[in-house]
């Protein structure tokens, strides 16, 4: 069978080679690779498109290996695999160490804040809208982390339904 994958790579030397290495080792064949370095996603990563051929089990092993190596698969057979999460925080966001808040979300594997929009209101509580991109299946981990931060810093969280 064949699968089409789109992976996201950091724009640093050696990334493409790292992706291609495990494929043959795990019994799969590379049919196509499309890599355009001058096209970048919102967060500065470079998408690479792969078509692989092989036994179902071997292809699944390749996918698992990509995951282990930290390459996020954003599309599989045309289906987007990345999840976008939007949340609003309300409270003393800046005074309660904004950088720490962002770091603790970004520290989660496969999770990244891609936009942060804050409305300041003098000494009053402020409101921020956060857009997060995450690998599939990370939603609950993100919600849990945000809830933990919110409780500690007395912030109100408005999550997506």
């Amino acid at each position, binding site marked *: 069978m064949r699968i089409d994958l789109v992976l996201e790579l950091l724009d640093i030397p050696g990334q493409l080679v790292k992706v291609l290495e495990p494929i043959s080792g795990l019994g799969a064949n590379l049919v196509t690779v499309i890599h355009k370095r001058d096209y970048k996603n919102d967060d500065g990563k470079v998408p690479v498109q792969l078509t692989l051929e092989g036994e179902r089990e071997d292809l699944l092993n390749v996918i698992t290996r990509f995951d282990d190596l930290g390459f996020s698969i954003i599309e599989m057979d045309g289906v987007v695999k990345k999840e976008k999460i*939007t*949340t*609003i925080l*309300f409270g003393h966001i800046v005074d309660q160490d904004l950088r720490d808040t962002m770091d603790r979300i970004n520290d989660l594997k496969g999770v990244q804040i891609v936009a942060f*929009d804050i*409305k300041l*209101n003098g000494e009053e509580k*402020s*409101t*921020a*809208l956060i*857009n997060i991109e995450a690998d599939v299946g990370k939603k609950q981990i993100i919600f849990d982390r945000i809830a933990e931060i919110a409780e500690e810093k007395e912030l*109100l969280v*408005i*999550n*997506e*339904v």
Partner: protein
Amino acid sequence: MDECKVIIMGFGSVGQGVANALSMKKDLIKDKTGVNVKVVAAADSSSSAISQDGLDEELLVKTKKEEGKLSAYPEYGSDKNGADVLDAVEYDCLIEATPTNIVDAEPALSLTLKAFKQGKDVVTSNKGHLALKFKEVVDAAHEAGVEFKYEASVGGSMPIINFTRDTLSSCEIKSIKGILNGTTNYILSRMTAEGSDYEVILKESQELGIAETDPTQDVEGIDAACKTVILANSLLGIDATYSDVKVEGISNINSQAIELAKKDDYLIKLIAEISPDNLQVSPRLVKRGSSYDVSGTLNMATIKTDLADEVSVIGLGAGSLETASAMLTDLISILKYKN
């Protein structure tokens, strides 16, 4: 059974709505069930009107509106009130429409249990006893072998309890998410449409009679949390009570939060979530154009099932005749069942 004698307990907006709706729909009920419904007593908080031969529904409403109390009802006015009314007259079904009390559930709890003991069916719009002692009340009805219906306690005219039980009876219910409070939905909708602040819209809502003088039950999510408990128990079989619900109201929502949400094509709604691992009422982001995007005082709920996937219902969550419609539907289904 060719006649059903009812007592209406509680004669505020809902009780009067029931009297008006009965007066309008008597013939229809007779056609559908073959039963003639007769109001033998109606009671407000301090007095009542009682007649074994039946009372005139329109005159009951007129008396209450003009005189302020039912004891002024011509000839049959009485100072009896509360549980004494249930002993004063022969009846078949109690239509219980007293105000919700989330502290000790009274007087609804005592009235309902008394009616059960007397072997009478009960239709209620009350949330207090269901939110605090759901299992106790339902078990008592079961032991007494009587019918107990409470569609009107959640979502006013929006069908949800009977709809899910009867129409979705082939499905297992996985979760329910929805807007179960019309007042907060009205406030948030107007904040979104006008960009105004919470306090301004709340005050206007109070002037329009949409929000109560003391809006705590609505804006702090208490009302929605009561409904969460009722749906959890009745439709998902979760043995929960009011204190099991995580509750956050809308009083912290400002126009900035709404504006930020709008930029990303979201709306902020007070959402009740009922699932085996989460009982929660909180402000949430919903996509514009999604099934949660209902404005004004509308209520909605999305029921997630195993076979039918998601099914959504929308309807007016409050109002005199709207709530009465749900109570009459409950009464009709009891009459059909009994016959």
